[in-house]
């Protein structure tokens, strides 16, 4: 079964910083690569997703980029805010496997 390696496990940044979360996986072919955001006490919710026709997708302050040679997806959060403090999960293409999660804390 395809594995996914998500890093880092936890991340602390100051308000305004740019946290970066990475997901590396085995299969380079993909149709859909989503990222989920989970706040404490809530279920995960889709944050942003990318399809293979683009190498980067931006939605507000959140950007997904895809490095095909490194087989890696990255999530960037521009101008991070304390309200972005949450756990972030990637999901490899076409699989029901979630990454281990990255717990992000944005300090005021």
């Amino acid at each position, binding site marked *: 079964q395809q594995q996914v390696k998500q890093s880092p496990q936890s991340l602390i940044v100051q308000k305004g910083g740019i946290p970066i979360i990475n997901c590396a996986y085995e299969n380079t072919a993909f149709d859909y690569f989503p990222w989920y955001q989970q706040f404490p006490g809530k279920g995960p*919710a889709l944050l942003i997703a990318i399809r293979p026709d683009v190498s980067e997708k931006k939605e507000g302050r959140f950007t997904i980029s895809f490095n095909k040679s490194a087989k890696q997806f990255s999530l960037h959060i521009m101008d991070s805010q304390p309200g972005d403090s949450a756990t972030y*999960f990637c999901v490899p293409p*076409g699989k*029901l496997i979630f990454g281990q999660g990255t717990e992000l804390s944005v300090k005021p």
Partner: protein
Amino acid sequence: DVKVTQSSRYLVKRTGEKVFLECVQDMDHENMFWYRQDPGLGLRLIYFSYDVKMKEKGDIPEGYSVSREKKERFSLILESASTNQTSMYLCASSPTGQGMDEQYFGPGTRLTVT
């Protein structure tokens, strides 16, 4: 508005009890899923269902069973609860495919087995 509801937010059961966790979605989705979430392990798939009365094992089905008698309802059953099943349980649904569509999650049930 899309909604997945779970029968309980918190549940405390004793070792050996039979436990039912219920999940209902109101979006007419084909697929439903049960995950458990543990610190440092992310979400792990227990079972999923692509249609009424159909089920497929996920990564960690041991000690669990499921039932899907109606499209909107997917139940997770712990036949004989054990302390290592203490966890957060999350139900999700999606329109079609195998993770190819957005999954909509319920708020979770935190189960404690004593």
